[in-house]
């Protein structure tokens, strides 16, 4: 798509794109190039010189059981966050959609946790499940369950998943509700006249018609779980116990800043670049499809 009417001039448009180009070059292209370059070297123990190792960093990473484990951790974590937040959101959106009056009120009540930062959400859930003072921990103790996410790996994973999914429900709810309200009433009423009950209608009509929204949210939520949950993990578990909650992004941080292993961290950045690229392509393919819908 192009505009028919264009202004003349060469210097002015170049000046107009310059600020964005500069910021992008300095804080995006240069660092990204730097990451690719550094991923080919290993610094000596004193940080004085760099030794070229080719793809050595990558070979080492891919054979490193900890790195492979963090791939699995990231996949499990992202999948769980996506399923929990989308599941709860869909359930609430279906309920709100059944109301003729009042769905707006519930929307207002449900959307604002979107504004709560992941790191703050992490602190809130950490407080509830704190091993010493947590309310939920204490009541679980009454029931005879000894909660300790500091030592127990699956409890740690469960806690970061629920804290990450919690803030995300708002966003999914908003899109699901909009998607549900866009489904023509006549289709649903026709099915109702044919005697289809609520669950049948949902399974055979509503959910299939909702699939563009669902697929879109699936991609967006996986991207969210990949990159924007660092705050949750850092505040609640710091990647532990035994690296059970160390996702790929967390590991870039842990190896690069805490471990000062620059070559490995750069190689991890490059691998993430590839992952992000793949996700972007999926997203764009999908957006094209959505236009046709």
């Amino acid at each position: 798509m192009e505009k028919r009417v264009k202004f003349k001039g060469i210097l002015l448009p170049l000046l107009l794109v310059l600020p964005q180009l500069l910021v992008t070059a300095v804080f995006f292209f240069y660092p990204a190039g730097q990451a690719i370059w550094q991923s080919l070297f290993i610094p000596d123990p004193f940080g004085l010189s760099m030794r070229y190792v080719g793809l050595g960093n990558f070979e080492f990473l891919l054979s490193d059981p900890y790195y492979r484990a963090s791939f699995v951790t990231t996949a499990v974590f992202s999948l769980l966050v996506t399923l929990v937040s989308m599941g709860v959101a869909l359930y609430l959106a279906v309920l709100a959609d059944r109301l003729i009056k009042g769905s707006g009120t519930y929307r207002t009540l449900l959307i604002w946790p979107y504004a709560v930062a992941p790191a703050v959400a992490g602190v809130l859930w950490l407080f509830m499940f704190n091993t010493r003072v947590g309310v939920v921990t204490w009541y679980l103790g009454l029931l005879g369950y000894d909660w300790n996410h500091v030592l127990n790996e699956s409890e740690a994973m469960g806690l970061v998943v629920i804290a990450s999914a919690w803030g995300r429900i708002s966003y999914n709810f908003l899109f699901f509700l909009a998607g549900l309200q866009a489904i023509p009433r006549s289709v649903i009423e026709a099915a109702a006249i044919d005697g289809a009950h609520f669950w049948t209608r949902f399974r055979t009509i509503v959910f299939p018609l909702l699939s563009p929204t669902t697929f879109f949210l699936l991609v967006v939520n996986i991207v969210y779980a990949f990159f924007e949950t660092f705050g949750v993990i850092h505040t609640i578990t710091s990647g532990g116990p035994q690296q059970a909650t160390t996702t790929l992004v967390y590991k870039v941080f842990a190896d690069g800043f805490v471990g000062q292993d620059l070559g490995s961290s750069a190689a991890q950045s490059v691998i993430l670049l590839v992952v992000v690229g793949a996700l972007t392509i999926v997203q764009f393919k999908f957006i094209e499809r959505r236009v046709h819908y």
Partner: protein
Amino acid sequence: MTAPQTSPAARRRPPPDGMVERRGRAYWLTHLGLIIGVAFIFFPIWLAFVASTVSQPEIVRPPMPLLPGDQFFANYREALFSGINAPVALMLLNSGIMAIGIAVGKIVISLLSAFAIVYFNFPLRRLFFWLIFLTLMLPVEVRIVPTYEVAANFGMLNSYSGLIFPLIASATATFLFRQFFMTVPDELAEAARVDGAKPMRFFWDILLPMSRTNIAALFVILFIYGWNQYLWPLLITTDPSMNTIVMGIKQMFPSGDDTANWPVIMATSILAMIPPVIVVISMQRLFIRGLVDSEK
């Protein structure tokens, strides 16, 4: 979404008002389900609020109370004006400057470059377009180490420019404005040109006023994005007086085995969510529009 009544008696009734025939169990179950959902969403925040109004001994002897206590003013005063590493009032200011800086900065550079890309033919236009396009989805999390080095070389550690500039290098806003400019009728630019208006005059007097709603919607989204940043401020600010509130909370936990000062930490958490929550609720319409727009 209700099954129509089919019995003759029902048909003779006046048309049902809304979900009249559902004002039975199902109707209340729907509300009940939603209320449980809302309660689940609210509970962590309610607990944080309660914890911010009681004293430390009440928290460390579990179970803590579930209703607010009388230490509200004492806790918030302590948090705001002395804090643990730095006064929270100062961290709020830092967060505000960062969030507004990111939102305004992104909007300004994106408006300008989208204007150039849509309304001009200049050499390398396609190339610029694709260069910007490439940045679309690469979050700062992925390239933190080299970006940190760049910022350090520029002497941007512990500075507002270090907090702001690396985060405005992204293309979402550019795309939004590009798409919007595409929908602006050609006749407007044509008329401006016939009247002899310079491009920048067209931009100021016509394009900018027309983009007002888009700008506002985007501002809401970017403000929240900026306010909620965590990893980048964590790296770039080592001086507590430059901490933003969202990253500063974690720094308030003692290292080692000491007990955290929960009332002050929870008061800080509440303070950290108030500004973005107010923005979302007071500008709900713009917020929803911004969300939908930025995903198109």
